């Protein structure tokens, strides 16, 4: 069997694939964070909690209401987005004139409340969700087996990321959004309803987190703690990439997922921490982040 540095190639590729799956979640979450930050100037600490809710709602939908994976894929992000509208309208809206630290503190509170409630109801052990029938099994690529579900997660999230990029950078709506990010007052003066745009931006951002949660449901352990553990890594990803560019967030997310996968193969003790170490290194060399501009 072929080996690279003493590691069999299929094992290496398997870990890389797993890393890429994680990278997809990083990309989707950091993309949502970046869009929300651009428009609301708030770092949404509740992002991880909403991702967790996405996964748990998918599980509840199947076990309580018999709603299958495909309907969840459509409905759950919608439900999360509606929750986002409620949160933005009822709470975040009051903070726009204040220091953006308050937004972080408020959303941290929301994250604690949601995590606590779900933890109280469902405990900390993982909830099982089986892979939908269409994606059972694996492709034989000759040099490795690629589980179909992983291929689907990678394909679906790349498509979502690309669609988000396309909407923001290449459509009329996206042009309004970019303009409103630069100068909300002026855009408002042109007769565009900026408050509604802000609400929609938050809804779409958290909807992306919800979608990532649905995709994660069959691929990882569904647990009330899954969100916060992930969001801290995503924060590091955001610091590394900088929040200036959409493609930047996507590339950084995927790249760091791959690096994490590689670390798991060659030095597994550091797999949990490699992203944080890279963050420290980037801060030394390029404090504004790889794709960032100071704002």
């Amino acid at each position: 069997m072929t080996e690279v540095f003493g590691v069999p190639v299929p094992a290496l590729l398997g870990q890389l694939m797993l890393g890429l799956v994680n990278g997809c979640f990083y990309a989707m979450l950091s993309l949502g964070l970046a869009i929300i930050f651009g428009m609301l100037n708030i770092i949404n600490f509740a992002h991880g909690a909403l991702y967790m809710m996405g996964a748990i709602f998918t599980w509840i939908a199947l076990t309580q209401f018999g709603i299958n994976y495909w309907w969840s894929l459509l409905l759950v992000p919608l439900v999360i987005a509606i929750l986002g509208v409620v949160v933005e309208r009822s709470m975040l809206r009051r903070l726009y004139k204040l220091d953006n630290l308050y937004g972080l503190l408020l959303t941290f509170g929301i994250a604690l409340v949601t995590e606590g409630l779900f933890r109280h109801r469902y405990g900390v052990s993982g909830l099982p969700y089986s892979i939908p029938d269409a994606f059972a099994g694996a492709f034989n690529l000759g040099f490795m087996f690629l589980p179909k579900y992983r291929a689907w997660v990678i394909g679906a999230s790349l498509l979502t990321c690309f669609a988000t990029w396309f909407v923001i950078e290449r459509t009329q709506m996206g042009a309004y959004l970019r303009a409103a990010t630069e100068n909300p007052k002026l855009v408002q003066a042109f007769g565009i309803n900026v408050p509604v745009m802000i609400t929609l931006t938050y809804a779409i951002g958290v909807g992306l987190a919800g979608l990532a949660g649905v995709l994660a449901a069959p691929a990882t352990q569904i647990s009330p703690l899954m969100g916060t553990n992930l969001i801290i890594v995503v924060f590091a990803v955001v610091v590394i990439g900088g929040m200036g560019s959409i493609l930047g967030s996507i590339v950084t997310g995927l790249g760091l997922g791959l690096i994490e996968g590689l670390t798991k193969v060659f030095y597994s003790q550091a797999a949990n921490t490699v992203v944080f170490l890279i963050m420290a290194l980037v801060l030394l060399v390029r404090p504004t982040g790889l794709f960032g501009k100071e704002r």
Partner: protein
Amino acid sequence: MRIVSPRFIGYASLLAIGLIAPFVVYPIFLMHALCFALFACAFNLLLGYTGLLSFGHAAFFGAAAYATGYAVKMMGLGPAAGIFVGTMAAVVLGSVFGMLVIRRQGIYFAMITLALAQLVYFFFLQSSFTGGEDGIQGIPRGRLLWFISLEDDRKLYYVVLAIFLFGFVVIHRTIHSPFGQVLKAIRENEPRALSLGYDVNKYKLQAFVISAALAGLAGATYAIVFTFVTLTSADWHTSGDVVLMTLLGGMGTVFGPIVGAFAVVTLQSQLSDKVGSLVTVIMGAMFILCVLLFRNGIVGETIGLYRRVVGRRPD
């Protein structure tokens, strides 16, 4: 003749309460609250007076607790030397983190401190000297100066009170010094402070290290009081707790973090047997309420109310 100021009466009565308290309230509870009060005061030096939100202060608290636990249990140091070692560990960690984190401002500062603290958490989880999930158990409290046995809770209480007062005085002096004035200037308007010729990053780094050192002092004392250290002390929940204490009590006030720490520790110890895991929900709800309804915290709002009432009185 100089009339005694109300502020002086305030400090004196608080000190008196501190001295009598262990005869009325369970000393372990008081020591727990005092450790967190010191921790919150140290945190407030950064958030309230320099405008920097650190979301990873548990790293310093936890690192000092582990260093003290290891020094006292494995190396056989006395409690005073152990606490010193712990505090120094926090100083070293604070200097390294400080140099990294002052390179970014605002919201990034919070995210970076959180991520670095998580790095420390995983380091403690995987290292052998920390005992992994079990932590370090059975740290001897020992004797202070060969004749004060700290096994007695009440004696230990007075030592902890002295440590707290020392930390409090350090912070008080820092805030009310020219150095503290520069920190406030940075909080209010960083570009302006920079244009006036202050080396803003140097000031921020110094404030960060002082804050980390005192957070470490609190953590080191905590290890001696409870005779064990676990991963909880370096957990992000602990970082969140200290943010809440400061926010609830009133950030940027001298007594706010103390009030907040006593309130949160009381709530946690009263509620944890009754509602179990719902404590997190209550903590989160308090965050939301504080941010939406009273951003100045208990002490800040009280001062505001007092000023409004006194200000309106025509005399």
